[in-house]
């Protein structure tokens, strides 16, 4: 079933950068979809359109529809806060909030109004276990989050998104600042998580897309050039530009 349906989506910023041109895309649930392409192609913009973080940016023009579970998230009466809880995002650089490890994970729940200590405790433990971080930090939950390693911080960022029990997880080059071991841990984690979640990732390399994705969408200068299942995409791309990009001729 399609979790997200994007119809005729166009976005333009006031400074003319990173726009999207008439995107049509259907993202199936419980799978990993990778958005690939050279920098400036609109991949990050698309992620930020999906959870409406783009509302904070300087968008001049936006048209088209984005349906989550069949409902347009840009309806005037759509609940943005609710949407962001359903669409967790992890950024390329781990940014722990200036709080403790525990508070980083409980933050989203607390701003949602959950006060019960036992509920928060349970949710924090569950999220940290899902992100494969519990064993490493369970005895120092009250340490500042900045004190753990970069790889751990990125899993903390994942845990803090998971704590809200989202339906979709957006990952914007989540391993670009990590070493190979931490990268492998996160990639393995994604394979476990896709049983429950719909995952959209902007991989930091084409190899990563080949390793983790079920579906691959190729973006070039704001256009969706080609979208297909991974093997079809990598073995027999239909568009010449896709083929050239995958072969490493540009990008």
């Amino acid at each position, binding site marked *: 079933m399609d979790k997200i349906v994007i119809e005729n989506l166009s976005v333009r910023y006031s400074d003319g950068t990173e726009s999207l041109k008439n995107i049509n895309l259907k993202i199936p649930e419980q799978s990993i979809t990778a958005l690939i392409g050279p920098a400036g192609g609109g991949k990050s913009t698309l992620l930020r359109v999906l*959870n409406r973080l783009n509302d904070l940016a300087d968008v001049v023009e936006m048209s088209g529809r984005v349906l989550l579970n069949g409902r347009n998230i840009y309806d005037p009466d759509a609940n943005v806060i609710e949407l*962001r809880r359903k669409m967790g995002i992890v950024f390329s650089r781990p*940014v722990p909030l*200036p709080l403790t490890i525990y508070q980083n994970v409980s*933050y989203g729940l607390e*701003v949602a109004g959950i006060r019960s200590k036992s509920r928060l405790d349970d949710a924090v433990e569950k999220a940290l276990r899902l992100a494969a971080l519990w064993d490493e930090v369970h005895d120092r939950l009250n340490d500042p989050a900045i004190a753990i390693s970069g790889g751990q911080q990125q899993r903390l*960022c994942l845990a803090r*998104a998971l704590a809200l029990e989202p339906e979709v997880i957006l990952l914007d080059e989540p391993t670009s600042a990590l070493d190979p071991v931490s990268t492998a841990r996160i990639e393995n984690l994604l394979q476990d998580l896709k049983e429950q979640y719909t995952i959209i990732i902007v991989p930091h390399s084409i190899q990563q897309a080949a390793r983790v994705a079920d579906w691959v969408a190729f973006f070039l200068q704001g256009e969706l050039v080609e979208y297909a299942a991974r093997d079809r995409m990598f073995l027999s791309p239909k568009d010449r530009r896709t083929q050239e990009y995958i072969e490493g001729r540009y990008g």
Partner: protein
Amino acid sequence: MTGGWLRKTLSPKRVQTIGFNALRLVSLLTVLPILAVVVYIVVRGLPVISWEFLTQVPRNGMREGGIMPAIVGTFFLTLGTALFSVPLGIAAGIYIAEYATENRWTRLIRLAIINLAGIPSVVYGLFGLGLFVVFLNLGTSMLAASLTLSIMTLPVIISTTEEALRSVPSSFRLVSVSLGATRWQTTWRIVLPQALPGILTGVILGLERAAGETAPIMFTGAAFFLPQLPHSPLDATMALPYHIFVISTQVPGMPIQIQYGTVLVLLVFVLGMNLVATVIRSRARARRQW
């Protein structure tokens, strides 16, 4: 070429040594006057400081006795100024830094704030006289003086608050919002705590200036001679800066030690606030996570 001669006689390393030493000398020169002032005031003023000087009212046309009403008055005026200017200034700073969108209107507001900070304090004094003492009929009172000092302090508090908030990395805001927080929750839970030390420093520096000012209070709330404590905010009060002005220029036959003693007390008051600000800032810097 003029540089050619220098290059021939001096090696680059030697030029650097000379340059560094010149800079060292100049920085020493800037510290010297401040040190000289403080040392001179302490040496001349310290002999007159006593328990009696700090706790008694002035006697014999202020030529004898203590300066207690002026100390208490300055304390209350500073407190009153804080009461008005701190909440207002911080709120305005939050609005400008976190909520207002960048446009012609906010640029105008910012320009106004910067210019307000440059207005001479005597102008604030006359403005306070017109608005609070006369028009609002508050009379010459601590309330009117505090309000006048507040207006003078506001620009400092607003701009330091804004600056402190802007120095908090915007990635924190993005993360907080992405986790379903509203803009207010983001400001209150994440941004404000991180900016607090900077804000407090600005607040203290602003209040410190208010505590030491003479011109804004001389028309609005400071009394020439009032050997008792004010009973209500609508009473006038003695205050250290104005008292110094009075005993230095208006009282014939004034013992000079009393003047130095009073200046020393004001200096301790103001430098003490400065010290608190410095401690807050250095502690926060040690604890900062970004």
